[in-house]
């Protein structure tokens, strides 16, 4: 299969959706003209291709950007709006949390909000904690919002396409570090269904569930432990809401051990939800306590050495595995 960078794969998904459906439009700060003159950026070239009507640069106004998505989706458009960095979703949160997520419910099912919010996220670019703060657990806590978190170009493309045409509001988390990472990407309108985790590597000894770039720490740990005769099963969750409970539970029932991995800090992080789910629904299969590998209880630091200290690594995953074997 041909290879694309994740940024290009997202670009392709956006272009396919826009070609296919006149209702799809893009809006956000710099989605048309950007300070980044880089063909690997997700919205690069789309203004030239689709024009100003459908690719809308906005002022620095996150509440209005999210409101634009809420209002236009209710009237039948399929907005794909961008939040430039994950922490800035707090400025859009009234529109997302109190409106996108609740107006379908409040209308007794009469109104729908098929909107997509692309959120640029991640750490590793030394911008500090007002730019790097993964808030997926906040968003996942809101009934009515779906949230996906791809780790590679094919999923970034496939999940985005599913999100755009999904009838509910979906938040798509794009880790910026992945924009420059390439991988096999199918051509055409190939969608990855929301709520489908993927077993990346089968194994019998312990289940490691990750999403986003921590998937690579998990895979690396699995590779290293393989040489020592320990077989990890690595699951890429891909979608947090809806959650593919079946894939996770089946795996834990087989291995008897669960290790969760994410960049966000541990306390009330998404790993806690996975641990609770396994404790409630697969308790008797567990041979050992659940372990959560996560960022420490601090904001994401700026200094490079501290940033790598913060981020879950393969070593930390291996340590967690060893502690339960």
């Amino acid at each position, binding site marked *: 299969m041909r290879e694309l960078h994740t940024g290009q794969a997202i670009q392709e998904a956006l272009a396919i959706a826009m070609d296919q459906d006149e209702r799809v439009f893009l809006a956000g*700060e*710099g989605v048309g*003209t*950007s*300070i*980044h*003159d880089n063909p690997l950026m997700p919205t690069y070239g789309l203004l030239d291709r689709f024009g100003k009507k459908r690719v809308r*640069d*906005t*002022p*620095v*106004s*996150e*509440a*209005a950007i999210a409101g634009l998505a809420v209002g236009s989706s209710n009237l039948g458009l399929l907005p794909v709006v961008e939040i430039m960095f994950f*922490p*800035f979703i707090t*400025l859009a949160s009234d529109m997302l949390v109190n409106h996108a997520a609740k107006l379908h419910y409040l209308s007794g099912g009469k109104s729908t909000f098929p909107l997509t919010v692309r959120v640029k996220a991640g750490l590793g*670019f*030394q*911008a*500090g904690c*007002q*730019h790097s703060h993964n808030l997926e657990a906040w968003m996942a806590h809101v009934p009515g919002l779906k949230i996906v978190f791809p780790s590679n170009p094919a999923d970034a493309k496939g999940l985005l396409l599913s999100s755009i045409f999904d009838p509910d509001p979906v938040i798509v988390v794009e880790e910026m570090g992945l924009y420059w990472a390439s991988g096999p990407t199918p051509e055409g309108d190939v969608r990855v269904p929301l709520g489908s985790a993927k077993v990346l590597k089968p194994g019998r000894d312990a289940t490691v569930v990750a999403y986003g770039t921590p998937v690579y720490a998990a895979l690396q740990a699995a590779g290293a432990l393989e040489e020592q005769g320990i077989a990890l099963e690595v699951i890429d969750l891909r979608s947090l809401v809806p959650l593919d409970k079946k894939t996770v539970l089946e795996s834990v029932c087989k291995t008897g051990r669960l290790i969760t991995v994410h960049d966000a800090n541990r306390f009330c992080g998404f790993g806690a939800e996975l641990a609770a789910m396994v404790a409630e629904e697969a308790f008797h299969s567990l041979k050992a306590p659940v372990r959560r590998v996560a960022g*420490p*209880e*601090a*904001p994401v*630091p*700026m*200094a*490079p*050495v*501290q940033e*790598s*200290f*913060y981020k879950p690594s393969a070593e930390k995953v291996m340590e967690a595995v060893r502690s339960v074997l």
Partner: protein
Amino acid sequence: MTTVKPDAGVRRAMLSQMIFIRAFEDRLAELAPQKDALPGMQILATGQEAVAVGVMAPLGSEDVIITNHRSHGHLLARGADPETLMAEIMGRATGVNRGKSGTLHLIVPQVNALMTSTVVGAGPPMAVGAAFAQQYREEKAITVVFFGDGAAAEGSVHEAMNLAAIWKLPLLFVCENNCWAGAQSLAEHCAVGNIAARASAYGMPGQLVDGNNPDEVLEAASQLAGHCREGRGPALMEAFTYRLRGHGEHDRQHYVDPEELALWKAKDPVTTYGVKLTEEGVVAVQDIESMEREAGKRVDEAVAFGQSSPFPKPEEALEHVWVESPWGTP
């Protein structure tokens, strides 16, 4: 236009500060592309030096300033120590924020530069709080908050202006209009083409000034700061200027019309003010040369201090999440 010329000593000091700020940031621009020299993206205020020095000149040390992501000029004009500032920008343990901030949220309590945020539009609401505390304690001090033309599109800024006006808070809003918010031009994000016009909607004075002319900025700032200090409520100053470099140091300005840029380069506040003061006999050419030499030397010292400083230890990332207290932290 300026009515009363500021005192010659003040003008010389402003020129000297502008030269220093430019030298400091030019060095950052030089270091930015070098591998591992500086963490993150450098956001420089090249071309906006006149706003920084003109606004700071009439302020007292008890006044609070709140700046944003484009802060170097504001902080240096306010008298922040260049060595610990440089060390912070380099992400070192000796930095003014112990390497926790880097360039984007430099907080310098020593000069009352508080609550710096890189979240666009976050300064004004916090400035309401600072000005409220000053009013509450019946202080003579005021708060000055800097924000960009882009930030003026955030709802938070409007909420802050309205509340400050209703409560007559001693708060000077300074909109530094550098014609750009990222790659979006002023015309794309502001329908009326100027921010000062909005002041009347909140019932406060609004004044548009030439942000490349330190004398004019100083005069307006001193009048408006006086208005705030006398308990007559907030005021808005818009300093019209231009961002001469990219949004950040990775930005090659591919979206900027080269003619427009050339026009503004010709109005470079550091050179034009130097020429003006020489023509008016306030400084001699040799004075400017010695200001430049002195600035270069101080920047060298700051860089040497930063580069010879250690990086923070990885575990120190966990410090300062909570205030140390006798009953422990979570």
